[in-house]
């Protein structure tokens, strides 16, 4: 059966088809050191045959706990369920004995976990790990099991199956491991598989491959899928129906188009408004959801979202909202649908507006090159790392670029492409193996003592991981004050006032000064990190994936803050990220990196409207867009293979292996960067 998502016929079919799984009034809690966490509260939903049901929400909303409690996979104790039914094939899974439940696990319901790196047993051959699903099946002979495993491994797109069967997980790439996990979940042809963030730890191109695979398998095998994710792009790309969870409750439920285009809950709407989208005007401001999710030790009596909701009414604080049915498939738990409630029109995000304006318009956009001197000039930088033996890892292999005063240069690429190494070389954390970097015409790796001090003041960095970027033994005051005192920007006497001013700038206050970092949330920590960078009045800041570890609603807070600070203080950014939509929103120009090389560099809009390099095109096609209609109509590029090992690469273009346009020449020679339009540079033989 083929599904055409979004069509009326598909919707009818879904509603008509039988229920595979029905969850009724599930409540699940954990006993912890600090009290009982009520992780899931009174959640009911069902999954139909062959459908993909998405469960979306931010970290801590209870989506994973819900999914895992279906198979009782949460650790018990401390976890315990205090009510509810889970009906699967006419049985209540909650009432089954553990022995009976084992016959469901793996056999009738498959499970795919988030991180394929840690979800496979490192000391067991992957083929055996898949075969283990049939462990309790006495009716199957050894070779029959092996055949089934091999067939399923082929099915999920693993080449060279006989060899792979006997390999250990550490010998496989991340994408390959996730395919093994999928094969494991599917090998017994279950009627339902549960995917818990299956692509979160993978690069976008691999993510796209895995999502396509799941869609394909669903169509072929008619398996129902529950897809847990925080990424609305993934939801838009593959889900038929969606549940939105917040604070342990389902706040909205509906067909994917209903959720995106007829959004009824303020939280869902807030999420959609807070994500940076590819189609966003870069001068617009993201609308973050202010505040932080509720404390689940003592969840609010009323609506969990009340405190952060701009339509909050008195009733929301005292009464949990009823669930209102808008159409058969679309349900929302919000007091705004109550008969007493005022009529409210939610501020919808603008629809994706494909390819407006002409190509020429984007190139004629003012580019700063003409106006200003380059602040940072990178010339032929190479940075190699020795790996064991004689092997050399060429993390950055000949990169040249310029960053002009007041602009933001976005640096994009998948993990391991060398973007962070480049960022660290620019901030002097690493010495280059070859090449030079100029800051205002001075080579930064051979500065005199005084110049060095100035450099460390003027060039700063913001880090990715909000948990490791603050010293756990220092107070916020010490963290933010360290640089000021070092560079003589404040004396002890006026230090407090200055720190307070900085904290106010990033939305924190005086009362936070004496606190230690472990008391802050991820978003708050990231803001403290920004305050530290700002404390020495820098000119140039390298932002190394500053939002990728944060929830979407918090991402918007931080991105907006960075944009505002740039305007207020005239900062220049090098913004490193793997997420093209965030980069587009904040950058003036973008450079795309692949295996240590910059393959394309262009003004932001030009890159998106008129991408030249096959790799850029691939990246653009792989990003999941949080808009179901756009995803459906999007031109798809077939993605071949995975990023090869950066150790001892061949002489040719590094992308040649995966490139649809590659010719013999591409395998023999490495292309130089050339200009294809004004300010638009590409390193490829096949274009221009």
């Amino acid at each position: 059966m083929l599904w055409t998502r979004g069509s009326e016929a598909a919707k009818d079919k879904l509603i008509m088809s039988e229920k595979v799984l029905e969850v009724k009034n599930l409540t699940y809690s954990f006993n912890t050191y600090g009290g009982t966490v009520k992780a899931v509260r009174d959640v009911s939903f069902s999954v139909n045959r062959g459908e993909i049901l998405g469960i979306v929400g931010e970290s801590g909303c209870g989506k994973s706990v819900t999914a895992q409690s279906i198979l009782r996979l949460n650790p018990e104790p401390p976890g315990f369920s205090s009510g509810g039914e889970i009906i699967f094939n006419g049985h209540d899974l909650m009432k089954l004995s553990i022995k009976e439940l084992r016959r469901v696990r793996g056999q009738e319901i498959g499970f795919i976990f988030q991180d394929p790196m840690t979800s496979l047993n490192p000391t067991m051959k992957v083929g055996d790990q898949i075969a283990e699903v049939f462990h309790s099946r006495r009716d199957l002979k050894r070779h029959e099991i092996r055949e089934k495993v091999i067939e399923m491994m082929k099915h999920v797109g693993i080449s060279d199956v006989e060899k792979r069967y006997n390999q250990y997980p550490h010998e496989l790439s991340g994408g390959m491991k996730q395919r093994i996990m999928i094969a494991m979940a599917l090998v017994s042809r279950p009627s339902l598989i549960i995917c818990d963030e299956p692509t979160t730890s993978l690069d976008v191109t691999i993510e796209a491959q895995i999502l396509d695979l799941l869609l394909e398998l669903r169509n072929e095998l008619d398996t129902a899928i529950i897809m847990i994710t925080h990424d609305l792009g993934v939801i838009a790309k593959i889900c038929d129906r969606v549940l939105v969870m917040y604070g342990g409750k389902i706040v909205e439920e509906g067909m994917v188009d209903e959720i995106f285009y007829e959004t009824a809950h303020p939280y869902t709407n807030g999420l959609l408004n807070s994500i940076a989208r590819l189609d966003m005007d870069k001068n617009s401001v993201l609308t973050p959801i202010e505040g932080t999710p509720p404390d689940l030790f003592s969840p609010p009596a009323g609506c969990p979202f009340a405190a952060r909701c701009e339509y909050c009414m008195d009733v929301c604080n005292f009464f949990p909202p009823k669930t209102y049915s808008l159409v058969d498939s679309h349900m929302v738990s919000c007091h705004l649908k109550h008969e007493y409630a005022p009529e409210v029109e939610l501020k919808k995000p603008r629809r994706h507006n494909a390819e407006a304006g002409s190509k020429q318009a984007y190139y004629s956009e003012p580019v700063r090159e003409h106006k200003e001197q380059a602040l940072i000039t990178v010339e032929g930088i190479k940075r190699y790392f020795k790996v064991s033996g004689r092997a050399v890892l060429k993390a950055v292999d000949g990169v040249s670029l310029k960053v002009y005063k007041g602009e933001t240069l976005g640096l994009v690429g998948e993990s391991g492409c060398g973007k962070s190494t480049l960022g660290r070389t620019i901030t002097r954390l690493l010495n280059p193996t070859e090449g030079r970097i100029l800051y205002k015409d001075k080579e930064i790796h051979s500065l005199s003592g005084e110049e060095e001090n100035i450099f460390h003041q003027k060039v700063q960095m913001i880090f990715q991981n909000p948990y490791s970027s603050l010293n756990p033994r220092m107070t916020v005051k010490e963290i933010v004050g360290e640089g000021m005192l070092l560079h003589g920007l404040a004396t002890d006497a006026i230090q407090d006032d200055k720190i307070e001013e900085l904290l106010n700038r990033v939305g924190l206050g005086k009362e936070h000064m004496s606190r230690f970092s472990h008391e802050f949330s991820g978003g708050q920590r990231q803001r403290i990190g920004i305050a530290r960078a700002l404390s020495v009045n820098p000119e140039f800041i390298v932002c190394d994936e500053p939002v990728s570890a944060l929830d979407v609603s918090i991402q918007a807070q931080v991105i907006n803050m960075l944009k505002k600070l740039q305007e207020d203080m005239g900062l220049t950014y090098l913004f490193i990220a793997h997420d093209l939509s965030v980069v587009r929103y904040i950058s003036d120009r973008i450079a795309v990196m692949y295996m240590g090389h910059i393959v394309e560099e262009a003004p932001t809009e030009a890159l998106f409207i008129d991408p030249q390099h096959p790799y850029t095109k691939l990246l653009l096609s792989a990003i999941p867009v949080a808009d179901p209609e756009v995803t459906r109509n999007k031109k798809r590029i077939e993605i071949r293979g995975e990023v090869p090992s950066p150790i001892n690469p061949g002489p040719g273009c590094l992308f040649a292996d995966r490139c649809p346009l590659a010719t013999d020449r591409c395998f023999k020679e490495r292309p130089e960067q050339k200009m294809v339009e004004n300010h638009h540079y590409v390193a490829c033989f096949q274009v221009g």
Partner: protein
Amino acid sequence: MLKYVLKRVLAALITLFVLVSVVFFMVRVMPGEPFTSAKLTPAVAANMEKYYGFDKPLPVQYVQYIGKLLQGDFGYSMKYTNRTVNDIIGETFPFSADLGIRALVIAISFGLVLGIISALNRGNKIDFICVIIAIIGTSVPDFIMGAFLQYFFGIKWGLLPIAQYKGFEYTILPSVALAFFTLASVSRIMRSSMLEVVGQDYIKTAKAKGLSDLRIVGRHQIRNAIMPVITMLGPTVAAVLTGTFVIESIYAIPGMGKYYVESVSTNDYSMILGMTVFYGAFLIICNLIVDILYGIVDPRVRIATPVEDS
């Protein structure tokens, strides 16, 4: 894998060489030149002269010494006239090896079982008892344990022979006394390692596959949890070996440890040095075996890991 083994063998050889050289030069710096002192009987003095060759220049002495060790010649005793260290080792080592192997088997098997039981019953009374046993075990030095067992089981209750090594019932007390400390540390490490593994994602994967608890514990948990225990096997062998020094003297077992302790108290320097080299070499080889074993059990070790900075 071959590369890994070669690397380990090379490292072991270097270590051995360093140990031997240190021993050689220590003899030279020893105060009072015990090997040439006038107290020695002429026969012993001649033996010393023959083995160490004091009349030759130092480098020559060194080369000769290494050569002799390579032939397995550990020198002469200063106390027992005309007996070589090799003779004594040959006579006594079988007793020590027998005792040591018994103790190791007891320590590792019971230690693993105790650790596994403890971890599987985390938080309840069984776990509590296992943890108490383990903590007490690591708090009682083996010579005290040896004395206690001898006193209660041998002297007070008369259940088992007090001393000597002449049959199975004679081996029980010394091997248990020797094993106890190691047993306790193996069980502590196994317990914490089991608890760490049980929180790993792949255990959840195994659960989601519908495997029985027995299979999860057996095929997934123990297999991975045992790694840290294997790493500490080298030090374990060393601990058991040094433990034999005191256990053998308490139970009057004619093993190598007893001789070693005796030579210490009678200042039989050449014997101490010869036996030290033997012990050192023995332990280095044990470590080598453990390293190779580790490479076999854990597939990840065989592949070289990248070094971060250049």
